[in-house]
């Protein structure tokens, strides 16, 4: 590609360029070049979007599709399978948007909770002293990470949950929780007049934990004495609301699901669509989180463990005081992206018919109104915003665990 040049040639070439001939021309100036490249890109993009918008308008006119957001006020005319707020088929598309949004948040929250739990349990299990436990963790991660999520959703929905017994032969737990092919039925707590006091007590107990932790840490720094924070906080959270409940005379009634005719009624019902989606999301993302946790723990040099042992810390204290706080620096950014992909993957609800935002809006509303652009963009923006909120919270958390450098 390059001819060998003699010293003379190179010298003469450099002399030429320094004496200001061809290579100092304006089109060889990187700034001017860059300017023209960008102008070309702008022109190209303008042309591209101009054509698209022109075509779209022409196409929509030809097929008689309306534009604008008027449809949000129109009656939807269809029902949704599950809704956290009251919904009837006469309600508007705007309300169906909210219903779908809440359902998406619900399944994402359940998924994030259980995925984190599974991920940390199996991630730490990878370092167990027990060979069998290590292998179980490995098998879990390698199986569920390498199979498409959609297949897992279907597997739980069609192969597992739909082979459960019918309503009359339900699997039951203490005659309070029932599981059958129609879903999971759980008792529901219905609050009476003074029940809000109990909830306030619970809130106060949770707030108390933070105060307690701060006080205990300060005391340890000053005196070196440790305080059993965990036991005290568990006791606080359980006992304080219980005492308030006892004082107010237990203002709760429990509604148990009961078999009436062919199915259970009352209590909280978890439909199989939600169950299969939530299980699949948790198990799938849990496998990825387990990998993240493993990577995080492995990133801590072994010297840390040895140093901790040499100052006489017990094994469980080494994990919680030395390894995990350092590993979190690696884990949290990975968790952030796993949570975001979990929220995006929750759109797979469309596969089993769980009425999440994507399913009720891009699925059904788009079909009925034909307003593809509005519905798809409204939905996309919601996912963007939810992911931005997750990212913001996780970055706050990350700042809390990040290395404080002096």
């Amino acid at each position, binding site marked *: 590609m390059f001819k060998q040049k003699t010293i003379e040639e190179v010298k003469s070439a450099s002399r030429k360029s320094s004496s200001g001939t061809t290579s100092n021309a304006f089109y060889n100036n990187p700034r001017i070049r860059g300017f023209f490249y960008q102008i070309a890109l*702008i022109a190209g993009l303008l042309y591209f979007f101009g054509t698209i918008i022109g075509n779209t308008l022409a196409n929509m006119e030809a097929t008689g599709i309306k534009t604008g957001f008027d449809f949000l006020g129109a009656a939807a005319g269809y029902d949704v399978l599950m809704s956290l707020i009251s919904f009837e088929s006469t309600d508007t598309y705007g309300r169906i948007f909210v219903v779908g949004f809440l359902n998406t948040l619900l399944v994402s929250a359940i998924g994030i909770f259980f995925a984190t739990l599974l991920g940390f349990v199996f991630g730490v299990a990878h370092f167990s*002293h*027990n060979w*069998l436990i290590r292998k179980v963790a490995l098998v879990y991660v390698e199986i569920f990470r*390498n199979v498409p999520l959609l*297949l897992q959703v279907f597997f739980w929905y069609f*192969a597992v949950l739909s082979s459960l017994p019918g309503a009359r032969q339900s699997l039951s737990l203490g005659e309070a929780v029932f599981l059958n092919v129609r879903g999971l039925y759980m008792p529901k707590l219905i609050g009476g007049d003074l029940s809000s006091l109990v909830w306030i007590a619970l809130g106060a107990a949770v707030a108390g934990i933070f105060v307690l932790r701060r006080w205990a840490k300060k005391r340890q720094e000053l005196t070196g004495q440790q305080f059993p924070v965990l036991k005290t906080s568990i006791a606080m959270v359980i006992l304080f609301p219980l005492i308030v409940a006892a004082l107010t005379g237990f203002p709760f009634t429990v509604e148990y699901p009961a078999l009436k005719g062919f199915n259970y009624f009352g209590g909280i019902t978890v439909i199989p669509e939600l169950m299969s989606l939530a299980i699949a999301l948790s198990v799938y993302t849990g496998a990825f989180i387990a990998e993240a946790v493993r990577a995080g723990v492995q990133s801590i040099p072994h010297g840390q463990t040895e140093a901790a042992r040499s100052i006489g810390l017990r094994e469980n204290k080494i994990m919680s005081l030395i390894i995990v706080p350092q590993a979190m620096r690696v884990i949290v950014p990975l968790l952030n992206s796993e949570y975001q992909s979990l929220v995006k993957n929750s759109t797979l609800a469309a596969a089993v018919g769980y009425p999440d935002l*994507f399913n009720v809006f891009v699925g059904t509303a788009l079909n009925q109104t034909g307003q593809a652009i509005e519905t798809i963009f409204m939905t996309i923006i919601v996912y963007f915003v939810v992911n931005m909120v997750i990212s913001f919270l996780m970055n706050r958390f990350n700042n809390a665990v990040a290395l404080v450098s002096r």
Partner: protein
Amino acid sequence: MKEFQPIAARPAPIKTVGFTAWLRDNLFSTIPNAVVTLSVIALLAYYLPLIFDWAFWSANFTGTTEDACVKEGACWVFINAWSYQFFYGTYPVEEVWRINLTLVLLVMVIAASFTLPKSIRLKASITSWLLLPVVGIAILDGRLLGLEVVSTDLWGGFTLNVFMAAASIIVAFPFSFLWALGRRSEMPFIRSVSVIFIEFFRGVPVLSLFFMGSVMLPLFFAEGTNVDKLIRVWLVLIFFMSGYMAEVFRGGFQAVPSGQYEAADSIGLSYWQKILLIILPQVIKVSMPNILATFVMLFKNTTFLLIIGIPEVVQTLQTALSNSYWLGGHALEGYLFVFLVFWGSCFSMSVLARRIERQMNTDKRD
């Protein structure tokens, strides 16, 4: 004089060597550990025989119709009877050699990029990779080669998943490279366009992209143009993939030491010579594990095509399950089979990725 005779060394205590020591260390080191071990063994001992019995000993292997499934175990006859559709969809049987030929070509191109002599490897393999999607489509469709035309409605099954994933990543490769360069560029407008593009395609659920491909994209074309649905989805997959791969390449660019750029500048290479001859080969090498991981993700995501009604393997399975001759409830067998097929391919790719990563690690240590 009596010669000194040392007493033979006593064997190490039985507790510290061999199998028993391993057992003590790994399974029964403490009492809680022993309890955990025993309960895991008990669970396995209870469930494994049941699973094996269902899958092998009382399973039905021979036959062609559902009536052949007389034993109460799994009905593998179902998989056997539908295996053609699972792999090739509804592609005509007498034309199926074309799918096989394309698969062979794919394997050959992969093999060529590892085995060709070094002097021509880069050029030859890049050319063959870029030609592969065109040649593959020509063979499968048949229009250009004067073969019988097989319309894209008939394409399907697991091979469609493979082809969609492979064709998307190949075309996305050069694009993602450009996006990654754009994101590193010093020109503000080019940089922001690249950032917006990459973040859009990474931040949006892939399903909504597929819906865009199937519902919104037709609106973008001039009136009267009718672009095949598979091609629209392909376009969407290319965009999606180039967003993700651009981030992989960005990581690769950052991993190349800046001395490499400076050295290339100092011997007077132009921008593109520097990028293509010096930087790109190193970037590809460092990002190989991540490229494979991204490909696994894309491959898994091709199952989402089911939602917009493209007959990939899961869709084929659902069709088979609702077939009126096979209503005996074979969901478990069917899903397990597809589960295993995907698991086998994705797991082997992630093992490969890990091996490459390990090889690169030793490189650095030398």
